[in-house]
């Protein structure tokens, strides 16, 4: 199956700072999805990226898919305490596999 690594594994930021998590694959991906899991909760779909170089925005969240379709990133501008959680990327169609996740802690 398609395996991806996410970095960093953990990130602590002060509220208002920016945050970025990266998802890297050794193989070309057909598409990639991002999910957020709040502490004690279940993963919730955020977005899907399909095209090379694609950039999508959702309010303070910006998602990018690399030109070679081997990496992706999620950037949060001016983090808020509601952004706390673990962010997972999930490559391919069917989303059989999830990345290792980045756990975000926001310090008020």
């Amino acid at each position, binding site marked *: 199956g398609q395996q991806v690594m996410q970095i960093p594994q953990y990130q602590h930021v002060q509220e208002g700072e920016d945050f970025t998590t990266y998802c890297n694959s050794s193989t070309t991906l057909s598409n990639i999805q991002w999910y957020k899991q709040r502490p004690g909760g279940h993963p919730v*779909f955020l977005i899907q990226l399909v095209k090379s170089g694609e950039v999508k925005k959702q309010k303070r969240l910006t998602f990018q898919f690399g030109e070679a379709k081997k990496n992706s990133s999620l950037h949060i501008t001016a983090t808020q305490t509601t952004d706390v959680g673990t962010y997972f990327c999930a490559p391919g169609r*069917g*989303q059989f596999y*999830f990345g290792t996740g980045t756990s975000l802690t926001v310090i008020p």
Partner: protein
Amino acid sequence: DAGVTQSPTHLIKTRGQQVTLRCSPKSGHDTVSWYQQALGQGPQFIFQYYEEEERQRGNFPDRFSGHQFPNYSSELNVNALLLGDSALYLCASSLVDYANTGELFFGEGSRLTVL
């Protein structure tokens, strides 16, 4: 519109026992996937069911088996439980429609503790 529902929410078993977890997919969805999530880890894919057949399987032993019923609901069975099977078991439903994003809708999960 009911989302994905799972039962039970919590359960405790002892080593060697068997467990059955249940999942009802989101209305209109025909595909059910099961994941195991250990504490502090990402979801690990167990298998996926579509049209009552196992379509894909992750790297899990045969102790893990499943079933999908005609109404698309699904069961996950784990035999001969081990301590290492303690985890949150997540069910996710989706729609096999290539015009759709194929996003997964997760249930709240079943928290299994094996003593």
